[in-house]
């Protein structure tokens, strides 16, 4: 088949979404499908630009290219699903959350002005129309599916994608908890630092970079974690695999996250995941005392959980291995089978 995978691209930024899209395109090509990644630079501010961007996608003609038909399009996240095609499947990473569940929170975008309120309504209407056209909608997690149902009344199947194919393995359960994340507030790394300050002797390694790094480093210094908290910055694939291989467990607790590949990577390295009850998507596979620890989003609870892991290495191994079995079942092949069945 000739397929177009549609994904908006924030110029100069690369993260989980880009890795996901590359993985999907690569896997489709490996299965013999002629596949192209279609991107449009994405800017969601100021004001009405969020909608004029949607219009750009609507203007694209992806029904054929160079005289040959494109058999189907796979749209991913807002606003790429505005694209028109008789066989449009949406594998929804997320909607424009600032208009939905993040509205009227500090992460929201729309003020209380009449114009902003109306603009938000337009985004909601847009989602209903553009997503409603799709032949089928998949979501990367049940939390995304739930949000979609609540917001538009549309049903979706959960289809979790696999992580990037690194050399995940397990060599030891050393005495540190690993965090792998872009460093911004929504990822709640500060919760881990505060917990480390309370759990005496607990080491933490924070991999990744981001706008919040300076604040987090200062916080670690303020809490007297010198030597116990390590900021590695951005690491290579090999270094990342090595950190996963050696850590005791992996901390991953963003707020109401859509999905997140980190738990899969942790599980493939046979490491348990420590997360919180409000983490959203990760809870699809992180089950308390089965594949990791799920605690209330408080410093005390998190400190207690990390300390418990440090004191119970064998249990950590058991939890991690249980997770490995779940993660191994998630493969591109299984995902592609379900995707293509929807457009067949």
């Amino acid at each position, binding site marked *: 088949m000739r397929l177009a995978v549609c994904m908006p691209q924030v110029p100069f930024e690369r993260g989980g979404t880009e890795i996901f899209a590359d993985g999907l395109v690569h896997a489709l090509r490996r299965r013999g499908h002629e596949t192209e990644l279609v991107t449009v630079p994405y800017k969601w501010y100021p004001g*009405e630009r969020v909608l004029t961007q*949607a*219009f750009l996608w609507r203007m694209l003609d992806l029904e054929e290219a160079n005289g040959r038909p494109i058999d189907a399009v796979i749209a991913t996240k807002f606003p790429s699903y505005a694209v028109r095609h008789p066989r449009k499947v949406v594998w929804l990473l997320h909607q424009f959350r600032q208009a939905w569940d993040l509205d009227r929170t500090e992460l929201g975008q729309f003020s209380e*002005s009449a114009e902003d*309120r*109306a603009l*938000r309504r337009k985004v909601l209407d*847009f989602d*209903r129309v553009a997503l409603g056209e799709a032949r089928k909608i998949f979501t990367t997690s049940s939390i995304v599916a739930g949000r979609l149902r609540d917001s538009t009344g549309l049903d979706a199947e959960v289809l979790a994608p696999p992580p990037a194919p690194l050399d995940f393995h397990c060599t030891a359960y050393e005495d540190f908890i690993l965090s792998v994340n872009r460093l911004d507030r929504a990822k709640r790394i500060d919760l881990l630092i505060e917990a480390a300050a309370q759990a005496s002797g607990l080491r933490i390694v924070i991999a990744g970079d981001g706008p919040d790094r300076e604040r987090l480093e200062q916080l670690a210094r303020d809490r007297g974690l010198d030597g116990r908290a390590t900021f590695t910055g951005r690491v290579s694939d090999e270094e990342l695999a090595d950190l996963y291989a050696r850590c005791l467990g992996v901390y991953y607790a963003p707020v109401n996250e859509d999905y997140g590949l980190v738990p899969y990577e942790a599980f493939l390295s046979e490491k348990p995941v420590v997360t919180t009850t409000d983490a959203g998507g990760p809870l699809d596979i992180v089950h308390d005392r089965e594949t990791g620890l799920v605690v209330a989003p408080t410093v005390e609870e998190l400190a207690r959980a990390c300390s418990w892991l440090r004191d119970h290495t064998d249990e950590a191994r058991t939890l991690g291995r249980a997770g490995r079995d779940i993660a191994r079942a998630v493969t591109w092949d299984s995902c592609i089978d379900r995707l293509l069945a929807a457009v067949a």
Partner: protein
Amino acid sequence: MKVSYFSPLPPSTSGIADYSALLLPALARLVEVEVVRPGRTRPIADADVALYHIGNDPDAHAWVVDALHRRPGVVVLHDFVIHHLVAGMTIGRHDGHAYLAAMEREAGVAGRMLGWGVLEGRVPPLWEIRPTEFPLAGEVLDRATGVIVHSRYAETRAREHGYDGPLWHIPHPAWPAPEIEPAQIDGSPLFGCFGHLNESKRIPQLLRAFADFRAGHPAARLLLVGAEAPGFDLAGRLERLGLASEGVIREPYVEEERLWALMSACDACVLLRAPTMGETSGSAIRTLSLGKPLVVSDVGWFAELPDDVAIKVPVGDGEVEALVAAMTRLAEPGVAARMGEAARSYVRSEHDLDRVAEEYVAALEQAAGSSAVEAKILRAVAEAAADTGVEPACLAPELTALGLASPNGHVPVSDTRTGLLGIWPMWAWLGALYVVAATVQLALGLRVVSPWIMVDELVYSDMARSFADTGHFLIRGVHANYGFVYPLLLSLAYKLSGSVADAYQWARVLNALAMCSVVFPTYLLARRVVRPGFAFAAAALAIAVPPTIYIGTLMTENAFYPIFMWLAYALVLALERPTLRRQVILLALCALAFLTRAQAVALVAAALSAPLVLAWIERGRPRRLSAWKPLYAIVGGAAFLVIVVEVARGRSPSQILGGYSVTTEHASYQVWPALRWIVYHLAALDLSLFVLPFAAMIVLVANARHLDRALRVFSAAAVALTVWLVLEVGIFASHWSQRIEERNLFYLAPLFLVALLAWIERGQPKPARAAVAAAGIAAALPGTIPFLQLMNINAQSDTLFIQPWWYLGDRVAGRGNVALLAVAVSVVLAAAFLWLPHRYAPVLPVLIALGFFLTWLPLQLWIHSFPRLSSATYTTGISAGRSWIDAAVGRNADVTIVWTGDNPYRGWENEFWNRSVKHAYDLTPPDTLLAGPTEPHLTVEASTGLLRDPAGKTVHAQYVLAEPSAQISGTRIAADDARAMVLYRVDGLLRTSTAITGWLGDTWTEPTVTWLRRGCVRGVLRVPVHSDPTLYPGVIQRIAVSGTTRPVVVRLPSTSTKTIVVPLTPRGGICHVRFEITPSRRPADYPALNNPDPRTLGVLISGFEYVPAAG
């Protein structure tokens, strides 16, 4: 976002009051709501959107519709048929014309005729017999920026009625079923019927059906709850059907709690309705939420209920049989329970209160902000499309499909404020603009140091001063025949301060406050046709027009400008809806304007003709001219009264124009000059506004017929005001002033600026012919202006727009090229008007602001600037310090000017700056300071030197201000020597001390000169003399001096100057000196001199100085 909420509320017994009581708490959790006190129709200023609940009951809803008329908003149409409401608001208010207009809007001329029938009592009230044929929802739908209905039925009817705006179908919210014990009522089954008992509730049919049903179900009972309609005769009906004794249980009006208990006791409720007014039934919702099935008529909203919760019966044929069948079915075991469960579930899913509230919020948010968002998106997309050569119109369907644009393009004037304007409420922005404008303008105004536009400034300041001092508007003690409004304002300054210097500063403060207040009416007027941001821009530009420089002067323009704009606003409002109140306000403003400037007679003409202009623009649409009868009647009556009174007083009716009556009585206007000057004034209006607004106005007016109603109304008002004012000023100028009277015309500027902004906001429509014609006319008109003729002293005060061109002519391009330059600039601006892409449209107002700025520069800084001219005028008039006269005699003294001519600024400036100067007389005709009765001419009585007025009476004076040459008999107590003005104490009859003959005005003498002084004492007379070597080359003249002195002969060579000192010896208190000069010559007799002067001349005497001997 804030919502203002207009609805009847408990304790009103209206069902809509209950509805609001239920909805409001849930709504307030999601959005800020200000519930408007029932009866208040004034809009809530800071609300983003207004929500109006409208039902058919005039008692409960008339005020809501009144409020809707004051500010458009979202209408919840609880009943689609609102004939009863409209009848209550029109006929009920004794406004039959409004009822006829509503009927005509509904059903054309036939509707109007039927309405006549109702008014005359020939046709029974339609709201009782045929309401559904004439719902009369049109007026309400016209004013709605969005409509909320509860049923598809109402939605369909609204669309059929031509409503094409946003519409939301939101279910009626359900009351939470109370935990309440069912009332103990027997009946198996028990059917309930709730509501008024009348024909339209199908009670007769229900009773017949129940009687039939009961034959097979003797245990069945029917519960009838509600008041009985007058004349319904329920008892008789029950008697006839055999239901009088048993079977039917009656309860009249019940309280809420009892209502719920009764409903709970029923097995099912029967709620029939025909005809339907498009309403939803609160009782039906209550019934369903209690889990009880319904039997309903198969009409309107009721027909939309799911079949598993309601059995629907047809109206009319077979109705009774269907009712019996429905009752029978519900009596079957388990049916009522099953349907009841479905009812409960249906209410939970469809009528959930929180969900309804959320849908309300969604609708309100869309109504408040969608048009602004859509405009931006459409603009961005259309620009992109246009830039790439795509026809923007092609994009609309896609935008619509994505929900990005309204399908019908219905974009009413938005209330949404965007960007910075959203930070503060609009009143705060306007207040800030007013304060900043007044401060800046005052700072500029105070650079003017003295009155200089004479005699206007002197007249108004004299009237103000007099009113502050005496309570009468007088000039030098004589009734002033000028508009008193501005002097009344100025009098505050004189009340506030004793010194004229302080009063003059305060006067400019008042000017700034008055003139700058034009921002308010300009904003309000602009808001009728553009959104807040643009209206604010219009207000800002209105106060930046160069003629606001008059703030520095004591001119009526300061009061007239804001009054004119309030009048324009009132005219627009009256054209929108010509109620009696609006017409009266309009006329009151006309009167106020007239009492400010007599030129406002043109505005009365504009007010009279604007309805006709609108009718012409709206030709083909229903006319509303008859609503204007009060205006025409009042004006006609007033005109008649004026004619009668003036004729009875033996005067011409034009005397009502006061000081300006000469413009009608003593002028013969000619057609061609008048036309020429009208064109000049149009051109001046065009160029002074820098072409763009003028072109935009032409395009709007040319296409007014196809514009939205707000712009049609605006166009009608603007055309009427412009035409009449330009005609008046142009014709006046053609005879009287021969100059472009920009200061009589600039009041129109805001109308043109609003036209430009409205044109931009509507996407710069450029219908080919109109746009090209508009640009062509606007570019060419400035070429007609006779710049060379106009660049003179008069332009300095009256034709401000010419100054930058004058400057360019003098300093850059040469005066001869100014017209060419002006046309070139106009062509460039007209090209921008035609071809500037829409995305750059905001540049256009900025260009105008730049033009204003460039006009301001010479007005403030160049040699013809106001500050410089005022300073020069002042120094021409006074050199001794502003209030030197008041300083010498006190401001309460009584000083009389005796004017002998030459450089009138000495008289004007001294009169203005000194409060003690109260009278003036002329001594040497024809020179005057002020023409007219305020300045009588005096003659000298030769024998006594007494000065007598035109009636021959002597004149008494305390102090006199005069030139020394006037030889006023009095004690010199102060003088402005450099300006040759002397202040004398007289304290008695006014007389000259000295009579001189043979001394000519230009200091030449005749062959004989006599000098006579009364009250003379011993001393000397000094007489500086010289001759003219041109007229007397090489001649030595002889001057023989005789009289009450020792005779002597003085020899005067033509090249020398001498002072003749004449010793004086009085006889009988009189000194008399005679000078005989020989030779004397007539210059005309000496052709070589090339001097045609026919007089016989002696010598030149520069003055006669009488010096009494010391002691």
